């Protein structure tokens, strides 16, 4: 027995690596005209790993307090070597991650890849989308600048609008009645401890389910002979090209469009003119602007926020609402709903940017 063989045997006896290797070798990816969408799950995962890595690095210098947060980020981007790079990559990668997630989700939606037996893969995926948005929202406050301050004020006030649970939820999020240093400390805790812990579990389940059920093929291809590609190494190498391109894009974005720090938050200054949230909140922001003060007997924003809440619930329950993949009429209804939602989000986002 050669040395490598004996090492492998030793490891296999203890860790069962041979079965893991066999499993990896067995994994295949179907090839058809929609195969391109398979890459976006891996892209999302890669950008998530970038977030974890750069996030841990930023932790070495960041100070989570109203007195020190802004200054510590300023220190990172002006004094620490490559601090500007790491901080900008973290901000840009967060945005690309959300974008990749949306593409991943909508491709799964339109190809109805959530149909049985993959309902729970969809549910965990939507949960991960909500968690990533929570990551975005909590991370946005951490530099403690003017924009972040007002974004947090508005965002948490929105949660306070929800009937019954709203007010306690608002106090829980803010760590009091107002957005203060207590809010910053809390958001820091959510961002670096609570959300990562929850993500680890849900992401683990999500990836396990993907392995368990294998890749879904679109209904149009299902049952036909399709060519298959080995995951290791063929698909993985293609994934890798995407990831290298992503690193290049992140470095370029960070260098050409470094993420602004802005002005330090001041709890007694008016909201700056032209204030806008991150692009992935913009469609909701713009909708809230258009709602009248009163709709019937309810405040306009209450109606808007409840509608978005119901939209989120609908998204989570899609696989249980569209249970018959064979029913083409029902599938068409879901495709139309999805297309309308995408159109609404795109139009409102553009209007939000232009106005």
């Amino acid at each position: 027995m050669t040395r490598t063989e004996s090492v492998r045997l030793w490891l296999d006896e203890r860790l069962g690596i041979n079965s893991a290797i066999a499993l990896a070798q067995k994994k295949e990816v179907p090839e058809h005209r929609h195969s391109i969408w398979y890459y976006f799950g891996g892209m999302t995962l890669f950008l998530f790993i970038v977030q974890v890595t750069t996030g841990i690095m930023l932790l070495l210098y960041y100070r989570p307090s109203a007195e020190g947060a802004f200054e510590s980020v300023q220190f990172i981007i002006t004094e620490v070597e490559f601090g500007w790079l790491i901080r900008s990559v973290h901000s840009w990668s967060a945005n690309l991650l959300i974008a990749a997630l949306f593409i991943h989700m909508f491709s799964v939606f339109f190809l109805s890849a959530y149909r049985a037996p993959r309902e729970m893969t969809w549910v965990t995926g939507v949960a991960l989308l909500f968690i990533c948005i929570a990551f975005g929202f909590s991370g946005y406050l951490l530099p403690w600048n003017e924009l972040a301050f007002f974004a947090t004020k508005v965002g948490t006030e929105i949660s306070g609008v929800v009937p019954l649970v709203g007010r306690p939820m608002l106090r829980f999020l803010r760590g009091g009645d107002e957005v203060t240093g207590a809010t910053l400390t809390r958001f820091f805790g959510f961002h670096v401890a609570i959300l990562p812990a929850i993500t680890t579990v849900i992401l683990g389940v999500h990836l396990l389910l993907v392995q368990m059920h294998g890749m879904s093929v679109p209904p149009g291809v299902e049952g036909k002979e399709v060519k298959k590609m080995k995951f290791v190494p063929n698909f993985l190498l293609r994934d890798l090209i995407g990831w290298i391109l992503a690193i290049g894009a992140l470095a370029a974005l960070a260098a050409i469009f470094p993420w602004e720090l802005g002005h330090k938050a001041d709890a007694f200054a008016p909201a700056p003119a032209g204030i806008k949230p991150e692009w992935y909140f913009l469609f909701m922001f713009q909708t809230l602007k258009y709602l009248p003060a009163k709709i019937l007997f309810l405040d306009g924003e209450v109606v808007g926020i409840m509608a978005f809440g119901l939209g989120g619930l609908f998204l989570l329950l899609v696989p249980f609402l569209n249970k018959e993949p064979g029913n083409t009429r029902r599938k068409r209804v879901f495709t139309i709903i999805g297309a309308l939602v995408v159109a609404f989000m795109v139009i409102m986002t553009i209007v939000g940017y232009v106005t």
Partner: protein
Amino acid sequence: MEPNETRGPTRRGFLNYLLGTSAVATLGAIFYPIFRFMVPPAVVEAQQNSVSAGKVNDLAINSGKIFKFGSKPGILIRTQSGEVKAFSASCTHLDCIVQYDPGSKEIICACHGGKYDLTGKNVSGPPPRPLDEFTVNVKGDDITVTKA
């Protein structure tokens, strides 16, 4: 049906009941403090009914400024006619801080485009309610703002 199942309370059933209720009580004793810990305590603030908000001469005609009313922001406005007015500066829509726009002579909120006139009334955009108005007392040069 087994004769066992038709009989009244069993020893096993009783022990399971004890075990179950103890488990629930234990979980309650663990999670209740965790839950309560996460709810921020209400901070007792001295009820401030009036505050000194600055000097008339520091405030130009047709301009406004933010002042602190306890932990909340207020807005002080000196109108074209020289009158001094004070309102809560928290937009009634979603809590952003409003500002005075000398051009339109309105109070505006930059967040969602809400507008109020100089009586605090919400005149356009999403705000559902007028701004709370405070009573202004000018003694010499000093401005004192009092909650109505």
